[in-house]
């Protein structure tokens, strides 16, 4: 098992431009069941052995795709997320960065009323090692195992995973959830899934400054999780004042700084690593392994 994606996932790739085509190929090579592509105007053609359609609706109808990954430009990405959702896709993974917040908040308000999950945008995607990769991460750094990883960052996730793998700790699923102000699933959503997943034994949470998602996660871990969790927070040296006027400060209350996040995690009994390479040891102590 794993969360969200596995070897039964039927993947649709939306947008087969330079990046989309490149990563569609890599995902397929990793073993992901890429069943279709969508690229308006290229319907009827084939790419890397899978059929390409003009619309997501047709792709879903003809191939039974249940998950999609987006490589479309920022100006068209909100539309593409909704196209996938309305076509019946259950999990949409939006790699695209640079989508306006106003656009995302409308998209999110709509998909909240639908039966669809969103990972991202502005994220590397997710991987269930040995089963499926839906995103742009380098597959070879991941090992199959029992640690769930969820992170707001991209390359930082790789760094963490590499450290875990080196220490012999494989991953059930690793997710780069994206760092945009408004996006899809949050820490709590992933933690809930990891808690339920029989193959996940422990979780690493990688947070960063801004927002209050780590604080919410801390509460959830304290109240509802039985599995051990370790944390890592970046941004301790980030320059202050890169926030937005009074309103940002008012809405975030005291939260948002690295210190506040570390404090929240620790108060919830989650050990926080100072440097990435401490994470395997912290987990080992918690799991008694």
């Amino acid at each position, binding site marked *: 098992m794993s969360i969200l994606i596995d070897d039964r996932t039927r993947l649709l790739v939306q947008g087969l431009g330079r990046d989309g085509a490149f990563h569609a190929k890599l995902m397929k090579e990793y073993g992901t069941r890429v069943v279709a592509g969508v690229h308006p105007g290229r319907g009827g053609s084939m790419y890397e052995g899978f059929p390409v359609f003009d619309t997501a609706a047709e792709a879903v109808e003809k191939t039974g795709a249940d998950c999609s990954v987006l490589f479309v430009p*920022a100006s068209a990405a909100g539309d593409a997320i909704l196209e996938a959702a309305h076509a019946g896709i259950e999990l949409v993974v939006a790699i695209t*960065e640079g989508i306006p917040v106003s656009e995302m*908040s409308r998209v999110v308000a709509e998909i909240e009323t639908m039966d669809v999950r969103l990972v991202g945008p502005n994220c590397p995607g997710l991987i269930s090692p040995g089963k499926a990769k839906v995103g*742009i991460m380098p597959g070879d*750094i991941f090992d199959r195992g029992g640690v769930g990883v969820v992170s707001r960052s991209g390359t*930082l*996730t790789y760094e963490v995973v590499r450290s875990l793998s080196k220490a012999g700790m494989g991953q059930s699923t690793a997710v780069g959830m994206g760092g945009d102000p408004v996006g899809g699933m949050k820490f709590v959503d992933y933690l809930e899934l990891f808690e339920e997943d029989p193959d996940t034994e422990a979780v690493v949470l990688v947070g960063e400054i801004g927002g209050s998602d780590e604080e919410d996660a801390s509460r959830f871990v304290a109240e509802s999780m039985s599995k051990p969790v370790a944390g890592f927070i970046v941004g301790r040296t980030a320059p202050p004042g890169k926030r937005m*006027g009074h309103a940002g400060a008012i809405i975030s209350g005291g939260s948002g700084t690295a210190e506040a996040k570390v404090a929240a995690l620790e108060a919830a009994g989650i050990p926080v690593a100072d440097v990435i390479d401490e994470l395997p040891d912290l987990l080992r102590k918690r799991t008694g392994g």
Partner: protein
Amino acid sequence: MKLEEFQAKALFRQYGLPVPEGLVATRVEEAVSAAERLGLPVVVKAQVKAGGRGKAGGVKLVRTVEECREAASGILGMTIKGYPVERVLVDPAQSIGSEFYVGITTDRRKRRPVLMTSASGGVDIEEVARSTPERIFFHTIDPRYGLRSFEARGMAFRLFDSKEQVLACARIMVDLWRCFDGCDASLAEINPLALLTDGSLVALDAKIVLDDNALYRHPDFEELRLPTDEERKEQEAKRMGLSYVRLDGSVGCMVNGAGLAMATMDLIKHLGGTPANFLDIGGSSSPEKVVGAMKLLMRDSNVRSVFVNVFGGITRCDDVARGLVEALGSMGDPPPMVVRLTGTNEREGVRILSETGISATSDMTEGARRAIGLAEAGASGGAS
């Protein structure tokens, strides 16, 4: 993109929000003639993108031409929180009864815009939020429907009793929403919203931050860009697809990914060094981008060593390596450098670097440690 007060007020005006009809001046005599046109008394306000200008003496009420000249010449020479004041806004003075706060931003937790109001407006609204949070009211806006009149009225009744003021305030809130939404703003704020002694409401100050990701939808906003020196550098970086923020340390950082960049800075600090900057070279990196990034770093005279930390995913290590080789080749006196390369096309990247005599480590901590050592050596060398 942060706007200056006079720009925000111009946008407010477009959306029907009540703002004083002020004039902008870049020279003292311009400010004086603005005051004469508007009629004294006036308020002379420094136009800077930093808060706290009032406390810094950047806002002055003047009653005579002489006072105005004095205030304008004083303010136009000031530097507030590192920002030199290049412009003042001359606003007619108002007879203020009391001050309120109205702002809209995005509530990341609810993933929707939020309207915030308080009867305790003015400079210390953040202090109000901290010490008496019950005096601030929140209303989450469904972006599909926008802020509706009935919702705005409900919020306005918490600030005012008189029917006229409630309806005027509700109108202001709806117009502020239209402005926030229409401009794709990250923040639209009126602080203070002043209740004048004649009973009318006026936005005495205005703050707008635009969402950089949405600027492509508003080509006309380009002319609102009045960058400070620092912003000019960040912008130039952005045009190259780089995200750059300068700090005060000595170890220049070049990293792919914002999270890893922050982790790298944290690590340098943790190991006793000082990061010179945040620099994210982003996803699909071309050699040109790496050259540009390197040049950007070298402009900062504080930089004593450079730590390149790349974990290839969408970024390919060979691209980064080629860019580094090219950048170093084009530079007369390259700084001491430590390169850490791993991930996609790592082997090819390392080969390219080694061919040019640059050695790469695969361990981040080790790389950071060596970069700090080089910076310290460079600093003592530079001091000699």
